[in-house]
């Protein structure tokens, strides 16, 4: 039995929590002890299976986002989250170190969590990274740009990289660890569980042999049936912050299709406007594994759920609100499997987008073609293999018995 700490430091929403809980569940079945060191704790409410895990607040900058308006690279994101001030980074690393020193994990699973990697490095604790292409940058120096609508400015990229590296090295030095030659070296861990495919990678295809496929966790939630009747089956999962929420509701009301919508925190007025006829509102997250097999279109923000639905051959009408989602939306569009609506779109553009995605069969064909390309991909098999690989890493370090040793044990 080993002790495994999941560290989630940056980003938001439910994807990190759901994915970590899925993997942790597999590790727990192998007898490992789990701790969640999470950026946001509210989401624990949707993972009751984590009831027995130790839970801690991940360190986070009190000045997050200040001074960085348009991040172009992973280094820019770091600078906006405590890395622009060496003293602040030293303090954040100190917070991680206290958690790791006290809880004593054999392995840290870092999900978009660069500072936990620094702390683990100062303590000699093994790490793996676990996340989609956006959460783990390619190992280039300087770290490459992810921003695509403008030509990356090499001077800016190099400067950001150098500033972040200087802070990282100040923190490593403050805790007696060896300095890094390149910022990219921070992401060198025992294993990079890069959970995407080359076609979906936010950075484009990178020189790596280890694509593990997207993180899909569709086996949790409420079972719900599609409304009876005619029309396409459309699943809507958006947040109330969506600028065109009212325009979308109007479009859905006017459509002849069957709709299941999960919109957390939707006010009574809008609920009343949307529900009725062939439109059903879910009050809790929907269990998607079987449900998506009958789905003709997903309407969402282009988070990990969009790529997950793609693996089921479901095309998307996407409303990206973060840049990471925007990159995913562009990827899916390039595959001919989605259309996306920019945050400043008008109601007429929302209606047009919806019309195109429901009327043009090429999107569904594009989505199905991609799913067929990876027909053997299975979310549960992916998790099983990651669990096995983690077991091998732990056995290498003597943290647990190797599978061979386990087999030699006499039966009791």
């Amino acid at each position, binding site marked *: 039995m080993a002790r495994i700490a999941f560290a989630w430091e940056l980003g938001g929403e439910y994807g990190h929590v759901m994915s970590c809980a899925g993997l942790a569940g597999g590790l727990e079945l192998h007898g490992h002890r789990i701790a969640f060191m999470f950026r946001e704790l*509210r989401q624990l409410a949707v993972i009751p299976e984590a009831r027995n895990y130790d839970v801690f607040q991940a360190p986070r900058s009190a000045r997050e986002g200040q001074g960085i308006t348009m991040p172009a690279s992973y280094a820019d994101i770091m600078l906006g989250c405590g890395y622009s001030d060496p003293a602040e980074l030293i303090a954040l690393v100190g917070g991680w170190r206290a958690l790791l020193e006290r809880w004593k994990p054999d392995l840290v699973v870092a999900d978009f969590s660069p500072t936990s990697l620094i702390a683990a490095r100062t303590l000699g604790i093994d790490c793996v990274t676990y996340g989609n292409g956006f959460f783990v940058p390619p190992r280039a120096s300087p770290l490459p740009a992810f921003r695509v609508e403008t030509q990356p400015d090499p001077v800016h990229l190099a400067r950001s990289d150098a500033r972040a590296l200087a802070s990282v090295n100040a923190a490593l030095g403050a805790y007696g660890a060896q300095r890094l030659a390149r910022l990219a070296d921070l992401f060198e861990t025992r294993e990079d569980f890069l959970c995407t495919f080359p076609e979906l990678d936010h950075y484009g295809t990178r020189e790596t042999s280890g694509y593990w496929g997207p993180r899909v966790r569709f086996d949790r939630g409420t079972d719900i049936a599609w409304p009876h009747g005619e029309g396409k089956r459309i699943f809507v999962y958006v947040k109330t912050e969506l600028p065109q929420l009212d325009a979308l509701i109007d479009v859905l009301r006017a459509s002849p299709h069957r709709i299941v919508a999960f919109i957390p925190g939707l006010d009574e007025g809008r609920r009343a406007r949307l529900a009725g006829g062939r439109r059903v509102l879910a009050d809790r997250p929907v269990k998607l594994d079987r449900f998506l097999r009958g789905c003709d279109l997903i309407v969402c923000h282009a988070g990990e759920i969009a790529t997950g639905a793609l693996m089921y051959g479901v095309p998307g009408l996407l409303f990206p609100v973060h840049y990471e989602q925007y990159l995913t939306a562009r990827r899916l569009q390039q595959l001919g499997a989605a259309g996306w609506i920019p945050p400043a779109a008008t109601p007429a553009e929302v209606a047009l987008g919806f019309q195109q995605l429901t009327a043009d069969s090429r999107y569904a064909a594009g989505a199905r073609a991609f799913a067929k390309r990876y027909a053997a991909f299975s979310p549960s098999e992916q998790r099983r293999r990651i669990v096995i690989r983690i077991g091998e890493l732990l056995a290498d370090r003597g943290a647990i018995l190797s599978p061979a040793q386990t087999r030699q044990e006499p039966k009791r």
Partner: protein
Amino acid sequence: MARALFAWELGGDLGHARRSMQVARALRDLGHEVAFAFADLTPLAPLSGERGEWFQAPVLVPSRTPSRSPLNASAILLNRGFGDAPGLAGALRAWKGLFALWKPDLLVSDYAPSAMLGARLAGVRRTAIGSGFSTPPVGEPMPVLRNWIATEEGALRKIDATLLASVRDACERVEPRAKPPACAADLFQAEQELLCTWPEVDCFGPRTSADYVGPQDDPASGAHAEWSTEARPRVFAYLKPRDPRFMAILDALRSVAGEAIIAAPGVGSEAAVSLSSASFRVHAEALAVGPLLAGADLCLCHSGPGIVGRALEAGVPLALLPQQLEQFLVGRRAVSAGAGVMIAPEDTAADLRTWLAQALARDDLRSAAAASPLRVRVPSSAAQRIAQSFGN
């Protein structure tokens, strides 16, 4: 030897962190173990060299529809995320994890209400320290924050009920066997409460049954500056550069002061230089206020409880520009004692130059400040009081 975890969650700037770190250091010198759980870890960075230990305090999600003018302390907690039961439950899970990990004998809370609730559920003893605002007088319902405005008691009861319902929901999710708070007042009370201020500058003071130990920070700590001319009047100013009136305040000050020294932490060293002259010096860092106040004719500030107390200890009258409620309440105390003048946060059209000139001309302010009872007060050590409580 006992173990004390110092927690700070709410309230901006460095006052809470500085006080906690000062008391913790003194407690450590008495042979006890200390660690910190702060909302902002940055102030702790200097402790990395001495193997200090600290954790991130759990982060609540603030209300999306906060009350702009909270009626009582319960309403402040609702604004800060206590109305969101799943979010509060998440924070309580993390406090539970931290208490099990670090095993404190005592929580020392400096405006850390979810830590206080977590400690209550975990059976960890609590000491509350602070300058008054974070340990409000309690009642059922929790009393108004602005006692000069008529408020329906029913409105206060409704706020308390909303808070209590959410808190109980969160407690049920995390620790169903523990006894949840019975009333809103339970959320604010600790086994030991030490007010690190004086009755005369306590925003809710004077309180009859409170334990005032006085400020715990060292007035000689901070960068050193000194008066360099004989020009009068001398004005010491402690200002926040993010105040929208910052430049206007400096202009007014420049026109009335013989010599001025301005501590404006956060202004940036380049800006500090460009704003300065020989008799008007802006500093980008916190200054040791004790020696400067000793030679000042007026203290201009935002009416934080710490600086107001220090000015009155030095017998220096005050010109006050509060930015928020706590500062306004502290300012009212100084004004009612006759030792200060104040412009309320909502009065944005005030003529700062005339206001400052008039304040400098008033002998009555000077006399009242010189006669302040704070001039002879000596703080007692909060750390010693905490250490004594370990024996109980």
